């Protein structure tokens, strides 16, 4: 009796895990199908080499620069008496509200000659550094300030305390944030197309649009998946499995802010310049296009349709992702073990795959196996569900963890069946958290471009795809209202992320 509900939940979670394995299975299957000789000619060619070099250059420039920027900003806002530190902290997260391809749209309209590696690195750093800023700033608030006092009492000046005591303890935060940025760089399509910088993602979409579902695109996808795996492995290697948690009782005294004195003025230049580049440029550009376009760009009918479609897809996709993540989230909290870890790994890995790979896999599978599903909303929703599965899982797991198992047992003792106990007690208590994670996923879908472009049924217009087709026609003014709406829709997401990073450390 006791085992039964667990077994059925394991079954459901296993089903979702199996679906998550589809893209990876597709890559392996296609490689086998193509045949070794063709694979060799398709993979070991100059074009792939070029793309690989581009990708590596992009990563090795963007990530270290983002680390330097994020750590300096986090230190200034969290550990010093920089004037307006709270405001700067907000402004350091706010660039996340602007989708990456809107960042590059802004830069391209401001400096049309911007292109290639330099342009790609510049816009990537500005669009993605908050992914590092958030965890690094949170960690800086957590590090026991007594540690720095001890460093000073052992004869270290402020600089050496920073490098020998504080920085090593940020390692996990820096690793995690860098991985996130690295994966985004691999997956991003819109940003690099606009800035005219070729990556695997842009090349795959190009191939897909010219030859549809040829082996060339599929093999590029295979290499891209290898890049993702390589990045994940590299991060695991650097991170190691050392425990860095704070030792001891943890009754920390509040952080003493470092007094900048006359240095405050030059230090202010860092957040000022960052804000000007990461927020000023997009908003000034948007404002300029909106003014230039006047009322004529607000084609309310079309914008309304796109908005409606986006909303519909976003909510449906978010619900799907959340429902799919529920069995796994429940198991992670209630039945941790080896099996649960394996299933959970399947749920998580799919989120690190680029949208272009997931889309390509679903296109091939629908065309070859279930043609009626090709170019339907169902396939698109499945792609959203897979891409945002980890995001839904993280939120759900935290909220289920808040409903203690004792309550379920109490309900069963009062005559409810296990399923009733879960649905009436646990799900009821987890509902607010689940709603938040639905919202998070929905906001993510709103700004999704690549998979939507490749999978959406003909005539489906979302904010992102409409923005994209207008900018492709160089009608920047008409694209501005769509960009503005995406930014406005993303603001709550940004607020939520900022609030969450504070709540995690209990403030």
């Amino acid at each position, binding site marked *: 009796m006791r085992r039964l509900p667990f077994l059925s939940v394991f079954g459901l979670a296993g089903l979702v895990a199996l679906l998550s394995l589809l893209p990876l299975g597709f890559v392996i299957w296609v490689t086998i199908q193509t045949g070794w000789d063709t694979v060799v000619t398709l993979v070991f060619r100059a074009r792939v080499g070029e793309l690989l070099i581009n990708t590596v250059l992009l990563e090795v420039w963007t990530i270290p620069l983002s680390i330097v920027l994020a750590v300096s900003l986090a230190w200034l806002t969290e550990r010093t008496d920089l004037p307006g530190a709270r405001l700067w902290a907000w402004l350091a997260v706010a660039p996340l509200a602007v989708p990456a391809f809107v960042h590059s749209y802004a830069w391209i309209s401001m400096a049309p000659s911007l292109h290639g590696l330099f342009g790609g690195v510049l816009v990537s750093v500005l669009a993605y550094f908050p992914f590092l800023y958030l965890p690094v700033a949170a960690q800086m608030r957590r590090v*026991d300030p*007594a*540690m720095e*006092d*001890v*460093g*000073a*009492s*052992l*004869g*270290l*000046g*402020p600089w050496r*305390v920073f490098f*020998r*005591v504080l920085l*090593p*303890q940020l*390692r996990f935060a820096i690793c995690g944030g860098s991985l996130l940025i690295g994966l985004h760089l691999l997956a991003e399509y819109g940003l690099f197309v606009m800035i005219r910088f070729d990556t695997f993602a842009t090349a795959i979409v190009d191939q897909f649009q010219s030859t549809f579902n040829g082996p060339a695109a599929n093999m590029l996808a295979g290499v891209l998946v290898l890049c993702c795996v390589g990045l994940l492995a590299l991060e695991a290697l650097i991170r190691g499995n*050392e*425990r*860095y*948690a*704070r*030792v*001891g*009782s*943890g*009754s920390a*005294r509040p952080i*003493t802010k470092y007094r900048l004195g006359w240095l405050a003025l030059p230090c202010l230049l860092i957040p000022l310049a960052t804000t000007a580049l990461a927020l000023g440029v997009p908003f000034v550009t948007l404002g300029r296009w909106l003014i230039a376009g006047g009322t004529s760009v607000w084609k309310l009918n079309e914008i309304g349709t796109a908005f409606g479609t986006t909303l519909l897809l976003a909510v449906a996709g978010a619900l799907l992702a959340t429902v799919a993540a529920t069995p796994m989230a429940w198991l992670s909290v209630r039945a941790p073990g080896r099996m649960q870890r394996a299933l959970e790994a399947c749920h998580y890995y799919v989120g690190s795959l680029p949208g272009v790979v997931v889309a390509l896999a679903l296109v091939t599978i629908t065309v070859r196996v279930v043609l009626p599903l090709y170019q339907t909303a169902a396939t698109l929703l499945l792609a959203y569900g897979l891409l945002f599965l980890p995001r839904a899982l993280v939120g759900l797991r935290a909220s289920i963890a808040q409903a203690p198992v004792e309550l379920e047992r109490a309900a069963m003792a009062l005559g409810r069946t296990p399923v009733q106990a879960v649905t009436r007690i646990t799900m009821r208590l987890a509902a607010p958290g689940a709603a938040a994670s639905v919202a998070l996923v929905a906001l993510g879908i709103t700004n999704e471009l690549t998979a939507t472009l490749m999978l959406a049924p003909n005539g489906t217009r979302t904010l992102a795809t409409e923005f994209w087709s207008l900018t492709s026609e160089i009608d920047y003014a008409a694209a501005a209202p769509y960009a503005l709406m995406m930014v406005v829709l993303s603001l709550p997401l940004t607020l939520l992320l900022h609030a969450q990073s504070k709540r995690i450390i209990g403030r």
Partner: protein
Amino acid sequence: MTFLDIRGVTKRYGVTTAVDDVTLSVPAGSRTAVVGPSGSGKTTLLRLIGGFEAPDSGQVTLNGDVLAEGATIVPAHRRSVGFVTQDGSLFPHLTVADNIGFGLDKRSPDRSQRILALMDMVELDPIMLNRRPHQLSGGQQQRVSLARALARQPKLMLLDEPFSALDTGLRENMRKAVAAVLKKAGITTILVTHDQAEALSFADQVAVMRQGKLVQAGPPRSLYLNPSDRTTASFLGDAILLPAQIGNGWIDCAFGRLKARTAERLGTAEIMLRPEQLKLVSVTESDAVAAPDGNAGYGKVVDIEFGGAVCTVTLAIMGDHGSCNGQRAAPVQIKCSAVNLPATGDHVRIEVLGEPHIFG
């Protein structure tokens, strides 16, 4: 000889004055305990001495060198001051050896010998050398923390409640071990604690702080027996506070006429006795009512709380002595051993050992 001299030091945070005009001298090689309830400013005082904060006014000198003169200070890393915190603050990313050697020159050839010598000094097994802080017990972490602070041969050691995170039994052992290590090394030490027993047993000099002010400083014994006010008296241990009439060389109180150093004072005053100064002798009821001995008090046992080694007896004071200025004395609680414990309802004679302390 004064080694550390703190003169008129004040530190404010906004409207609250954390440390209020504190003056304290610490002799070379001595151990001073700063004790007070939480929020009394004792940790802030320690941080001012360590150079982690700058005072608003006042002066700190160490061995003749001015460390702080108002807000102008020598920063922490230029003072030769060791620092051990409540939970050790070991660097989680470094091994035990690297933690201990953190303040030592990386290129010095005898670095590993020094680390081993330090581990030996704090009685740590060399097996631990390559362990990580989270693999150590609380007591071991504090030993590493102490060794790390000793590595730079500081002139002054600051201990910020280093034993409070440990279990009761371990706490006492660690206190003795740390005191022994520091005494052997001849390092002047300041211990901050909220535990009065720890302060009294650890230090040569105890400084009591309350609401940012230094209330009283002196040898533990004299502080315990002659506290300056009733709050300090109760803070340092259980105290029996009684009203009394002062005579010439004696006082009258609920426990009869007691010999006391009255110092030419007359009139009424409040006195303090420590519970262990009182001794109970069983007497008959008629004896207790007659009260033949004017130099002792008589009472009736109204309640007994059995506590093993130490039991608490509550007594109602009898006879004339019980009242003072027309007020009947409140029942007193006396600690005594379980041997010869009277029963509830018994009558006792209360004898006082030593002299009572008269508050000024």
